Structures are given as C-alpha cells and as structure tokens.
C-alpha cells in the first residue's frame, strides 16, 4: 500500500492500513507525512482563527479578565494597574499567537514518539509481544490523520460559532465556556474525533500486539482517561491552592 493510500484509507479501513504497517518494513513517511500535514493544517487554522475580529475580541476579553484577577489579588494603584494591563494585554496576545503556531510544530513530532512509547511499553509489558518501537511510532503517526481532520473541524467550528473553545464535543452546548471550570474541561473530553483518534491507535496496537481490539482499546482509552482526568484534577487542585 502506498503512503497516500495509507493516509486516506486510515479514515475508512484503519484495520487494513495497520495490518499493512505491521507487515511491511520501517517507513519514516508513515509518521513524518502526517506530522507535516498536521503542522500545515494547524498553522492555516491558527491564521484563520486569529484573523477573525470576533475571536480577537474574545481573546482580548480572556486576557483582560485574567489580568483583572491578578490585579484584584494585588493591591495596586490605578496607575500601576493600567501599566500592568497594557503590558499584559500586549504580551498576552503575542504569547497566545506564538503558542498557537509553535505548539503544533512541537507536538506534531513529539506525540508520535510519546504515544508510540506508551503503545510499545503496553505491547511488551501488558500483552507480552515484542515489536519494534518505530512501528508503534508509525502507528501513532498515521493515526494523526484523524488529528488533522479534528483540527480542520475544530477550526471551522470556531469560525462558525465565534467561540475560541469550540470543538466537536459537548462544549458546543455551553454558552460561555470557562477554561478554569473543571466541569467544562470534563465536557471537552467528549470530543468525538479524539475518541476516533484513540480508537485508530487502539486498532494499531491490536494489530502490532496481535490482541483483540477490545483489549487494546480498553488500555488505550484507560490511559488517556487517566491522563486527561488527572490533568483536569491537577488544574482544579492548583486553583484551589492559589485561592487560599
């Protein structure tokens, strides 16, 4: 199967693609091509999102509110507060844009190796099967095509709703998404395209470790759920700590 065939067939017949990957020799294109595509789509998405006045307004409001919270915590004069506001708004917006462009570039290459390591360790230690580490990286890399689709859909949803936090999840039901609200963060975990991505990774693990999809999926979803909820819980704990 050619690389373009793998990239496209992954959406419809992931089992067939993963079988092909497991059988064939190492191919760097399996993870490099989706990573480059993801970066490209993320950058175009970031450009589109940041060019919208409504989104710029929303971003400014979020930055401004965060600054006001900081100012309210520290007793300072109106003049000092104004200086802090001006500086923080300027650098906050720049920081948001820089991270929107830099984060996908770093994550697109880091995630295949991190999740590849997770799958490889699960194959060796849980399913007692030996397969090359780079095969796990290829599986995760190819699954990133679902991430590409998720990025496209999320960008379009943001443009449609004018909500910076829109995603194909239950968050769409919220009128005012609050990133500091743990319940809202838990709702964000219901992103159906992320579930699809995890399912494709689980298919890849099942093929590499020669186990059933259900067992592989239970482990992949379990680890993701554990990681995601602990992140939400950590955020909640940090908030509670700082409030004291």
């Amino acid at each position, binding site marked *: 199967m050619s690389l373009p065939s793998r990239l496209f067939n992954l959406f*419809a017949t992931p089992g067939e693609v993963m079988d092909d990957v497991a059988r064939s020799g190492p191919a760097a294109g399996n993870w490099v091509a989706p990573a480059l595509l993801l970066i490209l789509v993320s950058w175009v998405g970031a450009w589109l999102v940041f060019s*919208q006045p*409504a989104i710029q*307004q929303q971003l400014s409001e979020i930055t401004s509110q*965060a600054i*006001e*919270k900081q100012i309210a915590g520290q007793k300072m004069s109106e003049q000092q507060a104004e200086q802090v506001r001006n500086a923080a708004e300027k650098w906050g917006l720049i920081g948001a844009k820089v991270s929107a462009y830099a984060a996908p570039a770093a994550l697109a290459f880091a995630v295949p190796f991190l999740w590849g390591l997770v799958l490889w360790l699960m194959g060796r230690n849980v399913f007692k099967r030996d397969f090359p580490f780079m095969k796990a990286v290829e599986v995760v890399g190819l699954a990133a095509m679902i991430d590409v689709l998720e990025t496209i859909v999320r960008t379009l949803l943001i443009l*449609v709703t004018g909500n910076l936090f829109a995603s194909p999840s239950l968050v769409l039901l919220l009128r*005012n998404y609050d990133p500091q609200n743990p319940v809202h963060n838990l709702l964000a975990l219901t992103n159906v395209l992320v579930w699809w991505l995890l399912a494709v990774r689980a298919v890849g693990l099942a093929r590499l470790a020669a186990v059933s999809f259900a067992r592989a999926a239970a482990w992949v979803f379990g680890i993701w759920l554990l990681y995601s909820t602990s992140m939400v819980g950590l955020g909640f704990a940090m908030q509670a700590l700082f409030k004291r």
Partner: protein
Amino acid sequence: MAKSKTGRKILVFSILVLGVGALAAVAILKKREVVITVQTEKVARRNLTEVVVANGKIQPVVQVKISPEVSGEIIELPVKEGQQVAKGQLIVKIKPDFYIANRNQAEAAYKSSLASRATAEANLQKANAEFRRATELFQQNLVSASVYDEAKAAHAVASAQLTNSTHQVEMARASLASAEEQLAKTTIVAPLSGTVSKLNSQLGERVLGTVQNVGTEIMTIADLGEMEARVEIGEIDVVLIAPGQNVQLEVDAFKNRKFTGTVTEIANSSKTSPYSSSQQEATKFEVKIRIKEKEAFRPGMSVTAEIETRSRTNVLCVPIASVTTRLPKPKETKGNPSTATNASSSHTNPAAPNPGTPSPSTNSSPRPDKKNRDAVKPIEVVFLKQGDVAKMVPVKIGISDDDYWEILEGLEEGQEVISGGYRAVSRDLEDGKRVRLGPPTGEKTEGKEAAEDKRK
C-alpha cells in the same frame, strides 16, 4: 469483500467531505460580527456615602517633649518608658554642683555690693555734713570760694557713688536670682499627668540645655487617655474635608474592629519633606481626627481612616465600573441632546476627565494627540444595553462610594446599564456595538465569593 470495502470507503469519505464542506460553507457565509461580552445592572435608587480614605498614625492629643534648660550629667532618672507620672513628680535631676557654685558666687557678689552701698552711704553723709559747714562758713566770708567749691564737688561725687552702689546691688541681686533659677532647673518635674511614651536618655548621660540651641530630648510625656489619628490627605480630597465630619477608623493592631472619630483639625499648609522633590511627590495635608473610643492605643500605631465627606439619600445610582469617559463627537446636532453629546470612538479617548472632579475608576482609554485633547474634553458616559446593542448615554455624575456613582442627569430608574467587564466598558464599547450577556471567564464564582465577603 473488496466491493464492500470500496463502498465503505466511499461512504466514509462522502460523510467527511459533506460534513466538512457544510461546516466550511456555513463558516464562509456566516456574517461575522464582533460581539462583546458584558455584564449589566439596573439603575436603582440607593443611599450613598462618599468617603475619603487616608492613612496615618495614632498620636496623643497632648504630648510634651521634655528637654532640659541647663546642661549637665543626669544623676537621677526615676522613671521608665511606659510609666505613669503625676504632675509635679520628679522625672530628671541634673548634677547641680556647678550651678550651686555659681549661686554661691552670685550670693557673695550680692553681699559685697551691699557692703559697697553702705560705704557709699556713709561717704555721702560725711560729704553732706562737710558741704553744709562749708556753705555756712562761706556765707559768713570765713572760707574762700575755693574751699566751698571743693566741698560741693565732694558731695556730688559721694552722691554719685551711692547711686552706682545701689545699681551694683541690683545687678548682683539679679545675678543671684539667675543663678538660683539655673540651680532650680537642674530638677525637672512632670508638667502634666500622663505616661512616659518615649525615653531617650539614660542615667549618667550628659544632656545639653536649650537656652541657646536645640537641647537633648530626654523623654516624651503623653496623655494616652485622649488619642487622635493624624492622617495625610491629598490636595484633591482635602477640600472635601471639614471639621466635625464622621470617620471610621481601622487600626492595624486591632484587627476586625472599627473605631469612630471626628475630624478636629485640618492643616492650612501642606506637609513637605526636605528630602523629596516637591514636583514628584503628591502634596499632602495633615488632618487630625479625635478618636471617640478608649482603647489601649499606642502612639505611632498605623491607622486607616475613612472620612465620610458627603452623603445622599435615595438617589439614582449605577455601578462604579459602568461610568467611563469618551470624547464627544466633533459635530453636534442642535436640539437633540442624545445625539448631540454622542461620543466618538473609544480609540481616540483621553485618559483624564475634567480636572477637579473625581474621575471614574474605569477610565483608561488611550490618549489622543495634543491638538485633539486641547480641542475637546472627554465626557462621562455609561452604556445602556438595549436589546443586543450598546447605547452610549452621557451622564452627569455626583458623589460615589466604593461601589456606586450617583447619577444626576442622563438616566432613569430601571434602565439596564453595562457594568463590565473592565475592558469592554473602558475601551471596546462604542455606540451601536453588539453585546451579549455573559459572566466573564473565571469571575462568576469569585463574584459570588466577593458578595459573600461583603455581606459578612
């Protein structure tokens, strides 16, 4: 098998393309308008009390600094810091040896002058008798005119010597009185009943008198039964302060307690520090506030005073965050006050409102260029939420407290004014801009907590 896979692929890709295409179409066709998230509050009638907040220190109303009038070594210091003393009680004794010697010397000089005066009196009596005899003999032509003149001159000299001696006696008496006074000043007694609030000197220390220069400040005695707060108030606010105004006082040392007081004195001249540049430092005036409650205050304790300067009952109020400033539009339409005073875009607004009036706290618009600033002055406005658009309304504001501004003109009771967020009111909102209600991110829970704290 192959056919079913192909069919599946076609189905999946069709769904994806249709779904993404539909989203893209909606995204392209949708009219995008900037909607500003705001919070609102109704215009309501409230009671307002305007306060001026100032910081300062607690000091006794009556406080005396004790400095010696004569120099010398302290040989008795029968008090300690914090000790109560009664009026007339010995508090310091300075070594008197030198002053006793001075007194003795003056006394001897006085006695000597008395003796000199007695001699002069005797001489005058003798000269007087001789002069009388010479006069009688001269009238009978028994002595020459020369003898008569000699007797006359001797009498005059004796008389002058007596006058001189009399003055010498007065001088010596004055010297003696001065020496006795100096000696008496080696013993210092308390000028009032009170507490030794500060003790700077120790037994055996040499102190300097204040006769010709600044003497040593040995101690401070204060009446701690009557205390006052001395706070510093800026020149903008000092004109609002008047004697008799009520004050709420918070003393750092007495947490969770509020004291009451009354303004008693307002300084006529500003306080200036010799070490600071007057151009950079705000001009401050000292205001004295008599504390009504009796408590174990100590001089120098930090205090925050909230002076109630003005109050209004049942007046129209809006949240303090809803009042901001905007420049009025350059072209005014006569006969329509609402359009005549409409303000221009916030991007050209200056930061400062009219000088001399308290400025709305939310004002923070960027400054225009100098020419524009000179031409038009910013006006106070609020934004009303009418449907899903903001309407700018110029207002005339009165007094304010921590939370609300009094509205004198421009609004009616029950109207919905935009009270937040900060950025929206101070910068983003313009007449006709679309708005939507929404709690700002992360502020919802905090707002509840703040309200709860306030209620407590």
